[in-house]
Each structure stands twice: as C-alpha cells, then as structure tokens.
C-alpha cells in the first residue's frame, strides 16, 4: 500500500456551536481526554468508529445506560472471562453526542499464547455444553424479567403506614425507593451481563467459520453462509407470526369486517364483544400478547422505541393489513419450509464439494459449532432489547411520575435527560427533602439544565458524525468488530474516500451485499420508527439501521439500505428471508440520499447508484 491514511484526530473534531459544556451530560470517562498526555496519545493512535448501528441518534444521558452496560459486558467476556486470544475489550467515547468505539488488541505474542490455552479450556466448555447452559440462561433471564415486572414503584406517603411501626420495619419508603432505583439500574446492568454471556463465543465461531469457508470457496458470500448457519424458528419472527395467525383466525371466524372497519383497536374490540366468535378472537388476541407484544417498534435501545404494548395500534394495523392481503388471496405465511430446504441443500452440497477429507471434517466441525451457537445469536435480542427493555423503560416512567409529582419535571419523558448517576442524586434530593419536610433543590436545578440539554441534543441532531476518527489499525481480531459492525479494508477505505468528497457529488455508494437482487425505485429516508407510516409501496427504505419489528413494512418496500451493519444486522436477515435486495453497512447512505431520489440497489454487488 501507499502511504498510510488516517482519519482526523478525535481531539481535532470541532464542537457544535452552542453546545459547549455538553460533556457534563455523560459520565466523565466518556469524553476524549484533555488532562492526561499519555491517554491522549493512546486516543490519537486508536481507531474510533461511529456506532451508528446502535445509535443512529445522539445519546440521551439516561439511555447511555445500555452503552455503559455493554461497554463492560462485551469487553469483560473477551478480556477476562473467555480470554479471546488477541483481543481485549471495546473502548467507548462520546463525540458531540455520538458514540464512538474502538477495539483493543493484545500485542505480546507470549501473552497471546497463554490466552489461547485459557480460551480453549473456557470457550471449549461453553461450546460443548451450549444447549444446557443456554437453557439455564433462559431461566435466569426469565426470572430477572419477572422480578423487574413485579417491582412496585410507589410515590412517598405523607405519613408512613402504621405497619412500619407495628412490624418494627425500621426503614422508610423513601429509603426503599432509593434502593429500588439502584436495584432497577443493577437489574438493567445484569440483563446485559447475560446478553454477552454467549454472544462473544457465538460471533467468534461464526467469524472463523466464515474465514475458513472463504479459503475453500473464495467466492462464497456471507449471505450463503448465514443461510447454512441460521435458524429456521427464529424468535424475532414470532411476534409477527402471531399477527398473521390472528388475521387468519379472523377470516376463519368470519369476524374480519369488524376488525377491518374499526378505526382503532378499542372500536374493534367493542364490536367483537357482541358475538361469540368475536369474543373467541379477542381471547386469541389477548393470549398472543405476552410476552410477544414487548416487540419494540425500534431496536429497543432508546426510550422512545415504544413496544407494541405501548403502541397497540401498530400490531392492530398490521393485523388489518394481513387480513387485506389474505382477502386478495395472497400467501402471508413465512416460507419456513423453503428456508429449511434451502438450508439443508446448501449444507449438503457445499460439504460434498470439499475434496480434501481433512478440510471437510474441519468445515463440518466449525459449521456444527456455529449452528449450535446461532439460535442464541438470533434470539437474545428479543429477550433483552425488546422484552427486558420494554419492561424497564416503563418502570423508569413510573419513577418519572414521582419526579413530576414533586415538581422536578414538567413531563415524565424529561427523566431521560439525566444520566443514571444524576438520577440517583436527584432521587436522593427528592427523598431527603420529603424526609426533612423542606423544598427540594432539584426543581430549580434540573429544570434549567433539562431545557439546556434539550437544546444541545437538538443541535447534535444537525451534526453529521464522521464515520471514524483516529488511525486505522493493520489487523482486527475482535469478533464483533468483524461480524457485527463489518469493519473491513473496503469499508475503511470508503469512509476515507467519502470524507474527502462533498455529499452532493456522490453518485455511488458501496456496502455489503446482504441480500441479492437488483431494484430501482424512489428512496424513503427513515430517521425514526415514527416515520415508517410515510413509506409508499415499492419505495427503497434508507435508514441508519432497522429493527425486526419493522418486519411488516418489508412487505411493502422494494429494497433496504442501511448505514451500519454487517451480514447479521436485522435488515440483512429480514431481506434475505423475504427475497428483497439489501445493501448494508454503507456508512453514509442516510446522510447522502434524500427522500424521493431515484436509486438503483444492486444486492449482489453491494452497490447503490444515485440516479439523476
């Protein structure tokens, strides 16, 4: 290669005017360092890329909780638990409200050798006992979610109940509330400990299988491999499947008109109550909800990614859509049999093509491990990001109401403008002033601060975060960086190239070919789940990232394009399943492409052409 190119130093990225002091919204360890030269040097040499896959929007101080959770959880599983040979954790920083991450390697060959030995012992144990351990995992996570569901968050009484005295409790509901808040936060962090219990190993198995497969089949793409590895009964499709079943049931019972003609779910329920068949449908609807309606309308990472429980009209409208499709004679079933057949055929025929017996055996072994790991890789999101988060956000809203009652905020939704440490302080302030019988400091302190923060976050939204800062590394050993974020020589070079061209001069964008086919159509840039209803039939969905709960709209679109993501990102999985072209990991699509622009999407080459 010619001279080494690098991105600008993280310390040289200018502030967004009017946001000075933004660093205080987040824990101090999230800012790029100003006080320590050695640390600054490390930061300048590291490769920090923008994690738009998880954070298409600037960080709300509270929502950073999940980032803190995985900052620790992902890293520790690489570094301290499973001893991933050449990789420590992933470091995090915030730049102008956006999250940047950087994989940390291990350089010393002696240390790496020792880590290999430990990895084999530890990872080997998990790979061998995967199903049993995953069974335990489901129990742990179910228990944790139940615990949080059952938590009672109550406002403080004027005078404590007599039981406090007569049962000799010795503590107040004020103290209990502070403790509950801390428990809730810890449950959140705990959920993310489990989130990564298997994930690093699952990704490692896949990354190495992919690497090995490409040596034998240099032309093999990840789409083909993921079809061989992927599960057929993926939990993330279950919520949508329930809706299809409900649509079919409505037709079977002959109650479809009452559903179709109703503006809102409540109107439909009222109409359905009138008949036995209607009641039968209502019962099926109620039975289908839990826990599946904890499906998030987004990825679940932000507080405003409402679940179907919160936005019940979304699943209801989807049911109406499915009824409409059924009446037109369309098949709405997932092509499960076809997915299964394809998987079996691919595995059988690819294996048969490996001439060398040793390679064949190795391929079969690696494939078996990856297949064992994959149900977890595909399913964990529902448990944690959808179900657990869905429950968690609403518990936080209950706490938010208490703050509103005590004059700290005007609105429950203002709670997200405080980070988790600040909330603990604010709550302590609230409880102590209640105990003392004086006015709390919080209302005067936080109201002004919240207004300022709202303005700062709005200003951050106008800022286009550069895809990366710092220096590009020579090698990447960190499994997530390879597989989930899809960092490759190509993506890095494209980022470097694109940062030197004005957006209006770009005529082509490259990304990962995630699902095959070529389609031309008009772009629809979607920045939040709320905008999804703007999508017209046949339009090309352009988003920073997508969520599986958007599945119903994939029936409508012609193709999907995302800024961030590798072959296992949600858009890739859903598009493959539905046979739509998809190009993912383009880096810049949603900031370059405008709604209404004509595009050609080539899902085989990973190429997007911006047509005039």
């Amino acid at each position, binding site marked *: 290669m010619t001279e080494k190119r690098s991105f600008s130093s993280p310390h040289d990225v200018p502030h967004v005017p009017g946001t000075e002091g933004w660093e205080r919204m987040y824990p101090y360890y999230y800012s790029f360092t100003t006080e320590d030269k050695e640390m600054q040097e490390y930061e300048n040499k590291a490769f920090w890329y923008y994690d738009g896959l998880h954070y298409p929007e600037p960080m709300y101080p509270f929502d950073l909780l999940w980032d803190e959770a995985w900052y620790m959880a992902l890293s520790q599983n690489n570094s301290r638990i499973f001893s991933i*040979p050449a990789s420590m954790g992933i470091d995090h920083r915030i730049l102008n409200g956006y999250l940047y991450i950087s994989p940390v390697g291990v350089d010393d060959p002696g240390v790496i050798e020792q880590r290999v030995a430990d990895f084999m012992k530890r990872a080997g144990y998990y790979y061998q006992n995967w199903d049993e351990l995953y069974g335990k995992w489901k129990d742990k996570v179910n228990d944790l979610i139940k615990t949080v569901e059952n938590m009672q968050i109550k406002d403080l009484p004027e005078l404590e109940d007599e039981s406090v005295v007569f049962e000799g409790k010795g503590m107040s509901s004020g103290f209990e509330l502070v403790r509950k808040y801390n428990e809730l936060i810890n449950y959140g962090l705990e959920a993310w400990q489990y989130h990564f219990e298997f994930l690093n190993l699952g990704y490692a198995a896949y990354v*190495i299988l992919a690497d090995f497969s490409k040596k034998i*089949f240099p*032309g093999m793409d990840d789409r083909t491999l993921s079809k061989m590895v992927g599960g057929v009964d993926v939990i993330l499709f279950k919520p949508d499947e329930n809706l299809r079943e409900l649509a079919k049931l409505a037709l079977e019972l002959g109650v479809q008109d009452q559903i179709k003609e109703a503006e809102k779910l409540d109107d439909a329920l009222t109409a359905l109550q009138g008949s036995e068949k209607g009641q039968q449908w209502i019962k099926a609807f109620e039975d289908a909800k839990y826990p599946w309606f904890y499906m998030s309308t987004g990825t679940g990472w932000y507080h405003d990614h409402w679940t179907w429980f919160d936005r019940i009209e979304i699943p209801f409208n989807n049911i109406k859509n499915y009824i409409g499709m059924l009446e037109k004679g369309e098949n709405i079933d997932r092509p499960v049999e076809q997915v299964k057949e394809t998987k079996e055929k691919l595995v059988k025929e690819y294996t048969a093509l490996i001439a060398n017996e040793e390679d064949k055996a190795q391929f079969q072994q*690696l494939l078996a*491990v990856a297949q064992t790991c994959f149900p977890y890789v595909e399913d964990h999101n529902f448990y944690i990001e959808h179900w657990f988060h869905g429950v968690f956000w609403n518990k936080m809203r209950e706490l938010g109401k208490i703050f509103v009652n005590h004059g700290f905020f005007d609105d429950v939704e203002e709670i997200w403008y405080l980070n988790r440490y600040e909330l603990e302080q604010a709550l302590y302030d609230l409880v102590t002033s209640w105990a003392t019988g004086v006015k709390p400091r919080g209302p005067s302190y936080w109201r002004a601060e919240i207004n300022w923060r709202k303005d700062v976050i709005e200003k951050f939204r106008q800022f286009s975060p550069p895809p990366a800062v710092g220096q*590009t590394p020579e*090698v990447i050993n960190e499994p997530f960086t390879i597989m989930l974020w899809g960092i490759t020589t190509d993506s890095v070079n494209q980022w470097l190239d694109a940062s030197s061209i004005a957006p209006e001069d770009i005529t082509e964008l490259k990304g990962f070919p995630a699902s095959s086919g070529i389609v031309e159509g008009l772009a629809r840039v979607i920045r939040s789940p709320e905008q999804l209803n703007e999508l017209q039939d046949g339009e090309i969905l352009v988003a920073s990232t997508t969520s599986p709960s958007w599945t119903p709209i994939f029936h409508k679109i012609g193709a999907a394009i995302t800024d961030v993501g590798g072959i296992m990102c949600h858009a890739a999985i859903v598009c493959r399943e539905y046979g739509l072209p998809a190009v993912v990991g383009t880096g810049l699509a949603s900031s370059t492409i405008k709604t209404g622009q004509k595009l050609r999407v080539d899902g*085989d080459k990973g190429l997007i052409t911006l047509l005039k």
Partner: protein
Amino acid sequence: MSKDNCLVLWLQELSKDDPMVAGKKCCHLGEMLQARLPVPPGFALTLKAYETFLQGSGANKIILSTLEKHKHELLNDLSKAEEISSYIMNEVIMNKEMPAVLKENIAVYYEQLCDTCGCVDVPVAVRSSGPVSMPGQFDTFLNISGYDNLLQNIIKVWASSFNARSMAYRLQHNMAVENSPIGVAVLKMANARSSGVMFTLDPVTGDPSRIFIEGSWGLGESLVSGQVTPDKFVLDKITLEIKQKIICDKAVELVRDPQGNVITREVPPEKREIACLSDEEILELARTGKHIEKHYGVAQDIEWAIDEDLNFPHNIIILQTRQESIWTKRTKAPFASGKVNATEFIARGLMQGIKLQ
C-alpha cells in the same frame, strides 16, 4: 461382431472403457450420449478404420520407408521435419483412394445421420480422436457437408497424425512414429448462434462452488483463438444464482456463409454489447454443467454451443467435456491444520484476525 473389429460405430455404442476402439474423444462422446447429455448425434471411425486405410491404400509402406531414411532429422532439424511431414501428409496420404469397404460403411452411417437430422448432406464436424491424450495435436474440420467432402476430410484428419509436432511427440515418448492410429468423430454440426466454454469451478481461484461460463456470438473457434473478449457469467453451483455478468464488446463472430464456409464477420452494432446468452440459457447451461460434473465425479472443462435451429432448452449443445486440468490436478494442502478441534481452530483463527489495508 466385437467393437474391435468394426470400422464404423455409432457414438452411443462406445463407452468410457473403449479408448482403444476409436480414441478418447469418441468414447467420451459415447459416454456423454449414454448419460443423456445434449451432445449432437454422430458416428465414429475406429482405429481399425485408420489401419484399414493405411494398409489398404499401401500408404503404410511408403511412410515406413520414408521415416526410416529420415528418422534422425525429425527431432534435430525443424524445417526438414516440416518438409517430411508435408510430404507424407500431402503427397502420400491425401492422394490415396479410400478402400471400398470403408467407403461403403461411411456411406451407410452418413446417410442414416442425414435421416436422423432430417436433411440432405447434413453439415458435420470431423474431429480427431487419439487413443491417448495429446490435446491439439491433430486436426479437426468443421462444417463439412456432403459425402465426398466428408471422405476427403476424414483422410485429412488421419493425415494430421503425421504432422511434425505429433511425430516429434511420438519420438520423444518412444512410441512408434510410423504408425499412430487415431479415431475420427463425425458429429452433426451445431448451427451455433453462440458458443463458448464452461468450467464447473472458478478457474481463477479454484472455488469449487462456482460455475464459470465464457461465451461469444457465432462458432466457438473465435473464443479459442482469442479474437474476441467473451462475455463472462459466474453462478453459484448449488443455488444456481447468477453471481456475476460481465458483458463485453464482441466485435467479430465466426459464422457459416451460404456455401457452408466458415467466415469471420463483424457483429452488427446492436448485438455487440448485449449478452450472448439469455438468463434461462445461462441457467440451463449451468444445470447441464452440474450434471456433467456429477456424472464424471470431477470438475469439468466444457465446450458448448447454442443451436440456432433448435428451441430452448434443446438448443443447448455440449460439444466436448474433459476434466478441468489445473485445479483438479493440483494437490492442495488442506487449510485445516491437522487434527485440531473446533475450539482450537477458532482460537488460532482469532489470533490471526482480519487484516486491514
């Protein structure tokens, strides 16, 4: 009558164990026909026919005496070798009359072939078929029409066993130089709208999960002789998805003129930059390739044509198939590093990581 004693046989009467009957290409074609591959119909002249001709015509004696005199010059003096070769081919062999028994046999088979194809004087390809592999050593003549022409060209193929390079090869390999029986395949000529080659692996990377097709307008010879940059199509062998299509500017094509001669002509401008195969033809061709590979159990290098006179899918014609010669002979060291379990393999792989830049 055993096959060894026949002078002419239908191709489908030959199987893969018969290289000493009518040469390798003929038994290969026979095997393909038996495997129900879309090979054009035709017949074979056996090695016995070759010997019958040389002996019956008396050519063998002249050849023997000529070679005894000049044997040492064949390897040492290239221009002299060409001279001797030219003498044997043109003066000795080409002047000889075909023995009556051969003439009668060929007449019967050619007539039946014309019947099968439903036309008079059906154009045929007259291809050499040596009993051992010597690719490109002997001559092949295309688009031969009519009985007299056919006789003439069969003799020309036989004569090519005395071209300078074949004789040199035989001397170098301690084979009898004065007598090298070869078979001849007489096949219905495909009226090729497009033609080309197909590999049942990626010839560049050796990837066995790929099918690689190159094709151009007209007869296949333009591809082989490098006059045209062909279109390229790459498919996934398992799913038969078309992975890549590269359409090139194809300036010329080989076609038959009304008299049946093969001529080079310019491709009409509107055809130059369109694909020489439709998607359904690409898929059918790849399916056929997959079938051929399965039949032989090893990756194949295939010559194909699209016959303008026939309707899809019968227009897909396989002219020749042989074992792919580069990757299938290469003994590749396994990528797997010995008897390591999956966990260790993963550990080692993670150590190496993915290189950037």
